């Protein structure tokens, strides 16, 4: 039934786009073959729509309608605009790695004086001349998700990071995606971080737009491989332009006794979808994956997280908050899978939505899929408005309506933000949340 639908105009337009772009995409031989396979997987499904269970609340056929043509490499003017945008979103003390319109920008990035054990290459290099194992890893993400498949087919550039066993990086890595605004186009990026045994790193990803950037599409994906006893602290800041689309996927695997603390805040873009699959491959690991959506206007943000407990004795915690104003639409889909042998799993998920307007919408789908008996799993979900009595209390003490709301919203999202273990990262997120509240007036 859905097959007939899949062959819409959108699907065909994209086939043409792929044919046109193919010569510009890095990598030949097996890379080109892998691209072709991924593209066929995408073409078979087409843009996901609401009749596909995982996309029930984010119908890209309606919201996005089409995939834009591949962005051209940035020219000098584009790089200048990107540089200006970068200044506004600069974070102190980080190692900056910048992608402008989906292409690595060496002049805006810092690749010199690498810490011991840190290796950085571009995706383009690796696809053109990398070793086969690394290329295979880059094509590993599951093509059954149409937009992951599309990203595999079209990826043009990205950052490939290697952290050696035992290396403890002190300086956070900051991958910045900038849309220069030169054209209404789509960029396809993919980054990879291999974190060695007992290594430790901090990763920040930002999505921003230069002044005047229009309806562009950012298609990104990230592969994280976290070794035994390693630790990764990660923050994602989605501050794209208000007409932009951001479709990001993460594929994470953790070894034994590893630790991941990851947080995503979405305040930008018109439509965003963040889909993450976090899989435990070794025992005794812990994941904290949290996030905040701050939406207004007609923004639509979808966070779809899958935690795959495939081995015993792992712990996961999810805390998600969404604040939705105007005609915003927030979607949270969380799935905890406990596989048959994953005994002693401890998994908890809590999602809460705050609706600030009568036209706002919040949809929550927290799922448990459990095949082992000796586990403690739970989830909770709430939806509601700001508590009238709390507002009254604050108003009675002389705060304006907006100030009182802002204070309560801060407290509401604060519960999730507090879970960020790294102090510097927490500050970054707090200031992003404050920016949103200030813009609200």
């Amino acid at each position, binding site marked *: 039934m859905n097959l007939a639908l899949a062959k819409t105009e959108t699907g065909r337009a994209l086939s043409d786009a792929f044919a046109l772009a193919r010569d510009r995409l890095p990598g030949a031989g097996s890379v080109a073959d892998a691209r072709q396979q991924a593209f066929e997987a995408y073409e078979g499904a087409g843009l996901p729509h609401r009749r596909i269970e995982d996309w029930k609340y984010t119908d890209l056929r309606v919201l996005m309608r089409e995939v834009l043509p591949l962005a051209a490499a940035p020219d000098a003017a584009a790089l200048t605009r990107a540089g200006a945008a970068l200044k506004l979103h600069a974070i102190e003390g980080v190692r900056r790695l910048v992608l402008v319109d989906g292409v690595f920008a060496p002049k805006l990035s810092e690749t010199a004086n690498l810490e011991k054990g840190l290796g950085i290459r571009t995706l383009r290099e690796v696809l053109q001349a990398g070793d086969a194992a690394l290329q295979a890893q880059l094509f590993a993400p599951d093509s059954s998700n149409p937009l992951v498949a599309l990203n595999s087919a079209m990826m043009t550039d990205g950052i490939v990071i290697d952290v050696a066993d035992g290396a403890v990086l002190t300086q956070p890595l900051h991958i910045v995606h900038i849309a220069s605004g030169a054209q209404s186009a789509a960029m396809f990026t993919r980054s990879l971080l291999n974190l060695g045994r007992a290594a430790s790193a901090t990763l920040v990803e930002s999505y921003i737009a230069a002044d005047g950037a229009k309806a562009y599409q950012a298609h990104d994906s990230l592969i994280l491989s976290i070794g035994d006893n390693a630790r990764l602290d990660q923050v994602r800041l989605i501050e794209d332009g208000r007409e932009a689309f951001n479709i990001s996927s993460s594929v994470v695997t953790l070894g034994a006794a590893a630790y991941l603390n990851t947080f995503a805040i979405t305040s930008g873009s018109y439509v965003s979808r963040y889909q993450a699959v976090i899989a435990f491959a070794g025992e005794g690991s812990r994941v904290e994956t949290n996030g905040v959506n701050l939406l207004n206007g007609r923004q639509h943000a979808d966070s779809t997280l899958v935690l795959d407990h495939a081995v015993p004795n792992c712990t996961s915690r999810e805390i998600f908050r969404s604040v939705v104003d105007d005609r915003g639409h927030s979607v949270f889909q969380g799935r905890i899978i406990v596989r048959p042998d994953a005994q002693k799993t401890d998994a908890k998920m809590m999602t809460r*939505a705050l*609706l600030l307007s009568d036209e706002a919408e919040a949809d*929550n789908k927290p799922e*448990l*899929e*459990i095949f082992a008996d000796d586990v403690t799993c739970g989830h909770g*979900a709430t939806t509601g408005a700001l508590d009238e009595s709390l507002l009254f209390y604050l108003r009675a003490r002389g705060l304006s309506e907006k100030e009182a709301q802002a204070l309560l919203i801060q407290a509401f999202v604060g519960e999730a933000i507090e879970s960020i273990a790294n102090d510097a990262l927490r500050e970054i997120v707090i200031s992003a949340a404050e920016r949103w509240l200030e813009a609200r007036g």
Partner: protein
Amino acid sequence: MAAVQETVDRVRRIDVDQYRYGFETVIESDKAPKGLSEDTVRFISAKKNEPAWMLEWRLEAYRRWLTMAEPKWARVNYPKIDYQDLYYYSAPKRKELASLDEVDPEILKTYEKLGIPLREVEILEGVVRKDGEGAPERRIAVDAVFDSVSVATTFQKELKQAGVIFMPISEAIREHPDLVKKYLGTVVPTSDNFFATLNSAVFSDGSFVYVPPGVRCPMELSTYFRINERNTGQFERTLIIADKGAYVSYLEGCTAPQRDENQLHAAVVELVTLDDAEIKYSTVQNWYPGNSEGKGGIYNFVTKRGDCRGNNSKISWTQVETGSAITWKYPSCILRGDNSRGEFYSIAISNGHQQVDSGTKMIHLGKNTTSRIISKGIAAGVSQNTYRGLVTAHRKATGARNFTACDSLLIGDKCGAHTVPYIEAKNSSALFEHEATTSKISEDVLFYCVQRGLSQEEAVGLVVNGFVKDVLQQLPMEFAVEAQKLISISLEGSVG
């Protein structure tokens, strides 16, 4: 404690893998030719002496069904059903009956064996009443549906006095066409889903209840469904209307013989409450679940929906699901009237190779509507037990409230328990709360019980009964006793 002991004793007498109601009644029956076509639909309609409008309604549903595909989204697996390899109508051969005495004694015996009294002097088994306790006798009117037809309806006279209409739907179509026309298919439209559409085309019998304005139905109404014939599908249709200010409590029970092949049961239940009315609908579902290898059993694909059409009305679903090889059912409430209330209390137990995908939908449309969902899932053996529920508040549903708690208990490490809630708020004044937990029975608790002299099985029984207590309390008393026994029997063989 005494109750638990009794339950356990009862379980003892039953061997593992033995379904109490698995016997077959040998009677002559009248069947439609095998397979499904327009002729089958016409055959059923003619058998029921239906008016032309009803036949048209069925045919329209049948034609639509031909264009539909079987739903695939539920977490259940079963081989493809050959819809042409089924009998769509089967009725015990009979003459026009003047009284219950003329009912085939074999059928009466069947219901006796099932513990369902068709003679009005009897009451449901299991009610414990001590001597000297002057509790008023509880009476229940029963409509017994045997394969495709209703064989007896008790307490007709008394109900008539109260103005309550309680009769097989086939009779209601002839005798109260206006009421049926007005409400049939308005809650579950013929185009609703694959199985509901199939039911609309071929439904053969079921119960019809109409409670007039201001009437509190003087007794509980009950329908007992029995599938007896081989290779038949059972497609019953129930329609209950509580007019303004009316109240009715309705109970439903079901069993089937043990057979190696799977049998299809695709029912539709529609409830309508007008202003200030209330319907309480309780189900103890105990269709044959298949044997320990997962062979046989009923496919229970049911559409149940209630429409709180009037203001201040209430619909409450309570279900104890222990039977069926596959259960696919989501008793729902459309909260259309202002201040209306929907409730869903469920115990779903799966053992052996059973697959359950069940839950509810609470659709808040009116102002200040409230709903409550309490779901307890217990998975044992190699079964899969899924709760799937939707809570949604429409833009205009200001002040909507929902509370949901779904807990799952896993017994053994080969089974699965899943929770798939959909929570959709399109209104800022909607307040939704949802919580779910999954765990196994704590070793400490079991150890504590065993140390005090309980066997492992008694201990599990005790814990399970505690786990489901919230829901059992919602059942009418006779059912609660029966359900408690059923729960113990269903879990038989799952420990140790």
